[in-house]
């Protein structure tokens, strides 16, 4: 009852609301609860499709302890499966590789096609017999996880009962229709991971708002001042910030990345940074985009997987390197404040904090979503 009462305060209008209580950042049981309600029941980011560029590529990935693998099928489709053989539960894929033909279980060699069908069951009916009347291969395919690729990200719905991806994300897909096109991953140097000693939600909260920019990112403030930013809020879906003064990265000769073609004029100087609930942080600009996939490891540890995308397959390498360095600097600058907020959540009488009624709206939007979903989840359970 106490927890529910406290979450009611989170859902108050921003001027009167408190943030989420400490246990939402520090407690293992709340972490587990939020895993089911916020991550499994929604469309969560898992990986980027660029990790499996070629037909037959497979990569094993654990998501919240669940062994999965992503695969590019023979039909050039991205799919996600549980990484578990339907025979004795053996892990099928233990390392990233390219599948030439079938996925063969290393234990008793049951074989699956890349689209998950069980195609061979060696000796299942005795030596030299691949058939047995009790083994119906058509019912023993790999367990597929609902997935969808958008903005270069592989999104999954583990519970299997979220609305269709296009319905769940409609408002953001409409807003960013200009960017619904092939995005070209910048390659190895355009991917990096930052480990943070903080709950995943703090990374979302920090990303949503521009309030911290003058203090935490002084280099950005020289041209992208606080007053040049605007809030982006869509209740129960996403929130973030936009800037009206995006400046393209240039090399010493004035070269820039090629733009995405046929963008609306507003994107000449605009850029937007949106946290797509629960765990994907996206950024779009006239000449590049990025995705940060937050993978919660424990209540107080999170891995941020960052990927940069461009408008064309071939862009100048030196510019890509410079851009990666620039973004890494910005994201690294956020680490001390995100980790500092985590440490602050161990103050026993901290009440979740208050919000600036003017500056913290996107963050409160996220808190409201968490509180609302968790309360509804608790009600369904009781």
């Amino acid at each position: 009852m106490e927890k529910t009462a406290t979450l009611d305060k989170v859902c108050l209008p921003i001027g009167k609301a408190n943030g989420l209580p400490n246990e939402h950042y520090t407690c293992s049981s709340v972490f587990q609860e939020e895993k089911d309600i916020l991550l499994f029941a929604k469309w969560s980011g898992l990986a980027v499709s660029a990790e499996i560029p070629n037909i037959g590529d497979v990569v094993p990935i654990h998501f919240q302890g669940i062994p999965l693998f992503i695969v590019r099928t023979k039909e050039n489709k991205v799919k996600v499966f549980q990484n578990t053989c339907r025979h004795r539960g053996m892990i099928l894929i233990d390392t990233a590789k390219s599948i030439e033909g079938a996925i063969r279980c290393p234990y008793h060699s049951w074989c699956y096609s890349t689209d998950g069908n069980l195609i061979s069951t060696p000796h299942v009916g005795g030596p030299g017999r691949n058939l047995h009347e009790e083994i119906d291969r058509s019912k023993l395919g790999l367990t597929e996880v609902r997935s969808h690729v958008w903005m270069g990200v592989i999104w999954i719905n583990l519970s299997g009962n979220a609305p269709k991806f296009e319905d769940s994300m409609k408002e953001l897909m409409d807003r960013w229709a200009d960017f619904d096109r092939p995005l070209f991953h910048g390659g190895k140097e355009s991917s990096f991971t930052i480990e943070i000693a903080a709950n995943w939600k703090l990374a979302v909260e920090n990303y949503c708002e521009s309030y911290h920019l003058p203090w935490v990112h002084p280099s950005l403030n020289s041209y992208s001042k606080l007053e040049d930013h605007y809030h982006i809020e869509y209740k129960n879906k996403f929130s973030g910030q936009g800037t009206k003064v995006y400046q393209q990265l240039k090399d010493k000769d004035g070269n820039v990345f090629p733009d995405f073609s046929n963008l609306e004029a507003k994107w000449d100087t605009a850029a937007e940074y949106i946290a797509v609930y629960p765990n994907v942080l996206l950024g779009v600009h006239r000449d590049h985009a990025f995705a940060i996939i937050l993978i919660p490891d424990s209540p107080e540890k999170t891995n941020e997987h960052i990927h940069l995308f461009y408008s064309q397959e071939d862009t100048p390498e030196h510019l890509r390197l410079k851009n990666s360095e620039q973004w890494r600097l910005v994201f690294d600058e956020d680490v001390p404040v995100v980790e500092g907020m985590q440490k602050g959540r161990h103050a026993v009488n901290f009440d979740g904090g208050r919000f600036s009624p003017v500056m913290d709206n996107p963050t409160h939007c996220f808190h409201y979503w968490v509180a609302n979903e968790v309360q509804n989840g608790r009600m369904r359970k009781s």
Partner: protein
Amino acid sequence: MDACGNPDEDLEKKILVAHQNNDGLKLAELYAEAAYNSPNKNKACFFMVNAYTLALEYKHPKTQSFFQFLKKHDREN
């Protein structure tokens, strides 16, 4: 091939070496050879199951003919 339908010593050695080298394509061929050479239907099918399984994994060009061998003996469908 001995009287029981097992591969001769030389072929058996080759199979073991291919296993050690993790050479799936070669293994598929060696198992198929053992199957084709075996006078014993059950032994032949045993070897051919191994050949077919590895052929599936490594996309051996003779995968379909290995499959047909097993199908002919009601070991695949």
